[in-house]
């Protein structure tokens, strides 16, 4: 079907465009490579001795959490890029072309999957050097990586919406961090939920970050996950679908600022 083939080709053209930019903007490249390494090392060696994680060494406890956090921020490039495209009139150009309506957003979020894959590889490499030990069969580890990418993809759509609705690239970036940063910390990503005060604990237990991090521990460390793996998949799919619908609708009416 021509429509579908065009949509796919448009998406790939725009994903390529997003990726071409990365080696040309060294600050972006750093955020995918050096920043994750820095986070792993800082958390592992600064907090590692102070946080009690029964049943695990801190590096084993930390790795699933910190990779999930990194995935949730991977999409900020989408927010930044879309806000810039709007400001510079590129969205007008794209909307005047006979291209698929969703391709600009789909292309950017697809490019994030590629950069997120690079981040995961780097973080797992550094983690293993720092003492992280997979304790699961290979199919579970592969499933874990796929869950991480799905989760990152869902947050790319959150950032797509942020980028389309905020007034400038700078605002898009800080809005994204202000909303997502606390969510990642009030979860089981860095400390056991049981160590939090009552109200926070109640929130942390239903936080999709906790559910996803617990699912990752199940997949990478063979921890008991209950139904958390499918719960995590459901959260990611739900977030992606909800924000994709909002973003595409918003994009159709987008105007130059």
């Amino acid at each position, binding site marked *: 079907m021509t429509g579908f083939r065009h949509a796919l080709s448009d998406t790939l*053209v725009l994903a390529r465009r997003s990726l071409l930019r990365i080696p040309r903007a060294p600050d972006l490249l750093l955020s995918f490579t050096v920043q994750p390494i820095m986070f792993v090392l800082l958390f592992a060696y600064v907090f590692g001795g102070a946080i009690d994680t029964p049943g695990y060494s801190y590096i084993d406890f930390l790795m699933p959490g910190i990779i999930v956090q990194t995935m949730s921020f991977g999409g900020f490039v989408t927010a930044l890029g879309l806000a810039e495209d709007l400001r510079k009139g590129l969205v007008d150009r794209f909307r005047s072309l006979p291209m698929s309506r969703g391709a600009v957003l789909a292309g950017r979020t697809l490019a994030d999957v590629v950069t997120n894959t690079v981040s995961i590889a780097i973080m797992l490499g550094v983690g293993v050097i720092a003492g992280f030990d997979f304790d699961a069969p290979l199919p579970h580890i592969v499933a874990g990586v796929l869950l991480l990418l799905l989760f990152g993809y869902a947050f790319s759509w959150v950032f797509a919406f942020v980028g389309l609705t905020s007034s400038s690239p700078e605002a898009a970036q800080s809005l994204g961090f202000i909303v997502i940063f606390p969510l990642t910390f009030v979860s089981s990503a860095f400390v056991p939920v049981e160590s939090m005060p009552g109200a926070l604990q109640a929130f942390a237990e239903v936080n999709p970050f906790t559910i996803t991090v617990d699912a990752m521990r199940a997949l990478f460390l063979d921890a008991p996950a209950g139904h958390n793996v499918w719960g995590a998949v459901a959260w990611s799919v739900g977030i992606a679908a909800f924000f994709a619908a909002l973003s595409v609708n918003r994009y159709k009416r987008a105007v130059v600022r």
Partner: protein
Amino acid sequence: MPGELAIEAHGLCKSYGEVRALESVDLQVPPGTVLGLLGPNGAGKTTAVRILTTLLPPDGGSARVAGLDVVREAPKLRTRIGLAGQYAAVDENLTGAENLEMVGRLYHLPKGEPRARAAELLERFDLGESADRLVRTYSGGMRRRLDLAAALVAHPPVLFLDEPTTGLDPRSRIGLWETIEGRVSEGTTVLLTTQYLDEADRLADRISVIDRGRVIAEGSSDELKDQVGGEWIDITLESQADAGIAAAALEQVAAERPAMADGVLRMPIRRRQGAIAEAVRRLNEVGIGIDDVAMRRPTLDDVFLTLTGHAADGDKDGADPEAER
């Protein structure tokens, strides 16, 4: 489609909340001609272009471009139009060649053609040597040329140029004008918005003057100038007390009797050639001292003052619905 208009709009209107950006705009552009849409900031020019290029649905009225309805046949229409705007909408982190190839792919040109077409356009727009440089290293004029090239990738029969030279230096402006003239000579229909009378004067076959969302005058450049009045000479006298004698001395060579305006003697003229020399000679004959003499031509401000009774930039800093969005 012989005899059919390339662009045709009837009663287009559009509001942004309380602000009425367009109130019943009619436009007719025959194929192969240039329509200049002339007006100040916030007049509704960009809104009109956005509707005609399918970016914005009108609240009322209808428009056809290249024979296609801008709302109902929008997807098909997008294959037949090119849009270049005041924002120079090109990706700074791609090279010139990558930008044009990307646009060619998004027009779904056959395999291999995006690259060939990009190379051809870069050569034609004098960007061949900079083809593989990142656009963020380009000058303002080069970006505009690339933006215009991007609008031409798919050989569109109708081209929309939204303030194509705003912010450019004079040399780049003239270069861009020549490029646009080249497209028109090959049969492209152009709708061009501008704030500059000289730009409309040079490029447009017909001009529609738009203000506060309405077309307030329409005609060729000469017809509009006739409505505004012709050229005049402003003479600053050494002594304003001599104004009466000076006016009498000049009356015979003036288009109408000269009169004082803002402290200078304003003398409408029939033709430029020799007018200043003649005026100076006559004033010398009656022994009146002159401080300064200057030839004046109607400006956009004069067009607006005459047609609307308010200055063109009267609300530049005030309500500008397009700039706020």
